[in-house]
């Protein structure tokens, strides 16, 4: 990498106003582009993840890469960052081919990446995390790193204590550490893979100010997101990928959310968040009028009282603290909050997978605390877990086997311990058909299905028992738009049939689209529970920040 002299001025003179001009056309050189990826092709067994993708970024611009899960965004970025090697195509930085055969080569070339799953070592301090991998002598020069980290966080408004351990930081702070790591390495191109998923709406606003400042200093930013309003707010340019191909490039001025969504999916879609906007987002409603203790209209079916649930780490406060909630038949309670505020532990406690420290959970008066997951299910609770491949399905099992996981012991499905495979298969075929699960066969291994279809399969299994309470955690995370739409319809239909539904989601748009009442969690506590039709996004955002 020593043959890579600083060539800043050229990039900087081309930055700014020219940003919208360079619509990407395959195989034509874009003059002055900071980054050019030409004809990138990557094959995985059975999938063409990138099909001759060309993409460029100017210095000073935010270029968004938009697409559904599996469209090839992450693959393209992992090629750029040296985590995958491309089968064909080349990467040019400031017009020169650049070696991106490994992450360290990419870093040396000036490329930084903020991964969706943070690349931090929790048992090291902030300073040590930044210092990791830098050229050091026998001893790392932590004092130098610490003071530079201080300067950078001052300059870009990335406040974080350099001497605390990363495991002690909140998710938003961890993201700042990631950005500091990249800035410390003087990157010229920064890739951000769905960075806003862990932030409250207000934090997103601050974050965008920081990103804009980074771009204004001449850096090129690649922003990956599927949240269309954020894409519209932040981007200078937008390139849409579908099925591994570029389907088009545009600018926020030339398009709207509806059109972007259709480019992503390749057909007409109804956008849940467009369909159903919050009551008033102009900020005119008076927060004092808001009822922060909204109760269900009917008698509650599931009642959680004063629940404390421990998290995974010792020596810190419980992940859920003094939490109470009620859900009535025929309503959806949305649980909103930034990731890592106790939602996962709450869900696991209700489903019986994690024993609460104190408190009670009753379903129609029956105490669930201490009961086995099987007993809890028999009492009428269905659970769609957050980690669907860990808690919701067994990858090596066939679709049919996964569909029978919960109720294979019922008399209709087994006689004296022997499965009635014929009947079970017949039911599986029926469920695959009814829930529009796209699979070649019910004997197909589940791991070969797409995320959306695995989620539909889990929904089919959980709903077919006719639950009286349905608990769905992150029901559409990592699911393509089409399947997400279908899952939303199913959840609403289940509510209309009289099921008490809890939807836990970090996606505020999803909560707004589905819930009748919204409960906001922060640091394991309930900040408030409000009626969906009487709150604004701003109010919810403040609540998500603990206010």
């Amino acid at each position: 990498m020593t043959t890579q002299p600083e060539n800043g001025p050229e990039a900087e003179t081309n930055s700014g106003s020219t940003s919208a001009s360079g619509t990407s056309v395959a195989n034509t050189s874009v003059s002055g582009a900071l980054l050019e990826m030409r004809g990138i092709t990557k094959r995985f067994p059975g999938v063409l993840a990138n099909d001759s993708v060309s993409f460029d970024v100017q210095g000073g611009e935010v270029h968004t890469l938009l697409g559904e899960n599996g469209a090839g965004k992450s693959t393209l970025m992992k090629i750029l960052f040296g985590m995958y090697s491309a089968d064909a195509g080349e990467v040019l930085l400031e017009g020169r081919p650049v070696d991106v055969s490994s992450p360290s080569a990419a870093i040396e070339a000036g490329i930084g990446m903020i991964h969706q799953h943070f690349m931090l070592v929790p048992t090291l301090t902030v300073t040590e995390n930044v210092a990791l991998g830098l050229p050091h002598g026998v001893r790392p020069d932590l004092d130098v790193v610490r003071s530079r980290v201080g300067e950078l966080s001052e300059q870009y408004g990335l406040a974080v204590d350099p001497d605390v351990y990363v495991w002690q930081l909140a998710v938003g702070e961890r993201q700042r550490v990631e950005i500091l790591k990249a800035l410390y390495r003087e990157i010229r191109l920064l890739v951000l893979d769905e960075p806003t998923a862990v932030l409250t709406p207000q934090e997103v606003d601050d974050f965008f100010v920081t990103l804009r400042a980074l771009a204004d200093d001449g850096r090129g930013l690649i922003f990956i997101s599927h949240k269309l309003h954020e894409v519209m707010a932040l981007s200078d340019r937008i390139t849409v990928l579908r099925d591994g191909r570029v389907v088009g490039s545009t600018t926020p001025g030339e398009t709207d959310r509806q059109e972007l969504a259709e480019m992503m999916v390749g057909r007409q879609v109804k956008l849940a968040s467009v369909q159903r906007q919050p009551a008033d987002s102009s900020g005119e409603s008076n927060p004092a009028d808001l009822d922060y203790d909204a109760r269900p209209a009917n008698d509650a079916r599931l009642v959680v009282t004063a629940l404390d649930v421990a998290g995974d780490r010792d020596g810190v406060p419980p992940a859920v603290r003094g939490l109470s909630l009620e859900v009535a038949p025929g309503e959806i309670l949305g649980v909103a909050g930034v990731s890592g505020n106790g939602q996962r532990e709450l869900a696991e406690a209700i489903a019986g997978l994690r024993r609460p420290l104190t408190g009670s959970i009753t379903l129609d008066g029956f105490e669930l605390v201490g009961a086995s997951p099987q007993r809890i299910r028999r009492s009428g609770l269905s659970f769609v877990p957050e980690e669907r491949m860990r808690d919701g399905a067994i990858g090596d099992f066939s679709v049919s086997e996964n569909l029978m996981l919960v109720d294979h012991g019922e008399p209709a499905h087994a006689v004296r311990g022997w499965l009635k495979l014929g009947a079970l298969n017949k039911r599986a075929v029926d469920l695959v058909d009814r829930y529009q699960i796209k699979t070649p066969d019910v004997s197909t291994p589940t791991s070969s299905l797409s995320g959306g279809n695995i989620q539909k399969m889990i929904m089919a299994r959980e709903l077919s028992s006719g639950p009286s309470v349905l608990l769905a955690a992150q029901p559409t995370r990592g699911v393509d738009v089409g399947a997400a739409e279908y899952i939303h319809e199913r959840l609403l239909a289940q509510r209309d049939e009289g099921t008490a539904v809890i939807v836990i989601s970090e996606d505020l748009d999803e909560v707004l689209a589905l819930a009748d009442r919204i409960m906001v969690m922060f640091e394991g506590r309930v900040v408030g529970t409000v009626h969906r039709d009487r709150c604004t996004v701003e109010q919810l955002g403040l609540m998500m920040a603990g206010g």
Partner: protein
Amino acid sequence: MAEFFTASVLVTTFAAGVRLAMPFLLAALGETLGQRSGVLNLGVDGVMLIGAFFAYWTVLETDSRLGGIAVGLLVGLAMGVLYAVVTLVFHAEQGISGIGIFLFGLGMSELLFQELVGTPFPIPALTEVAIPLLSDIPGLGDMLFNHSLLVYVGVVLVVVFTWVINRSTFGLNLRAVGENPEAADSLGVSVVRTRAIAILIGNALAGMAGAALTIELGTFQNNLTNGIGFIAVALVYFGAWRPLGVLAGSFLYGLVTATVTQLKVLDIVSGAAASLTTTAPAVLTVLALAVIARRTASQPAALTVPFERRR
């Protein structure tokens, strides 16, 4: 029982305990390094055995005790190369391949002993090096400051390892690689190289621990270690992956072993009771682990997880 609690017996027993602790300490320090990098090596005992045999044979043939220790270290290094290839290149399941290394070391040391030596001739022990002034302190001097060079090396290594793990660049890489190898990799830290270095040093120390054991005992026999290598692995958990903790655990084991031996020598326990007291170290391991097992927070998160970049 009274004859045990005399000043001279207590001092002798304690001094013997310190000496006996060394094989535990060296092997467990090496294993600590490996585990902090995320690699579990259950083959420590096998590496110790094969290192012990070669050290014994070297001393028998050349009369050089330091030469024997050096050979033990090199043989351990060679076993480390084998284990690094198996775990880092072929990404083998660490628990199983470690057991393979153990069985290899056990069988190979027996075979070589039968073929090359046959009869357990005695070899000379290491001479003691008294530390000036300190060794003249009554009691304490003989307990701590009148030992072979190996004991001082072991204690110095504890300090060195503590510094390396917590303060050096290599230690920073080591901790990162053991906790989150993907993160280390994304910053250009070579996971394979860091783990390879940790494995090589760890195995070299295991080989040296075997050499220390055979020279301390002054002879070799089949399965000389009698499970010390496995206890060393347990000591890493006991010491919560810190060299100082490992030192404390090793001393505890050395002292218990020395006490049991002394009680038998003095005929305080005999017959079946004597055999039963031999299990004391093992019982202690189980008890210690039962208590320690609750503190899993300090265990390297990526322990036993192979690292492989997808291509």
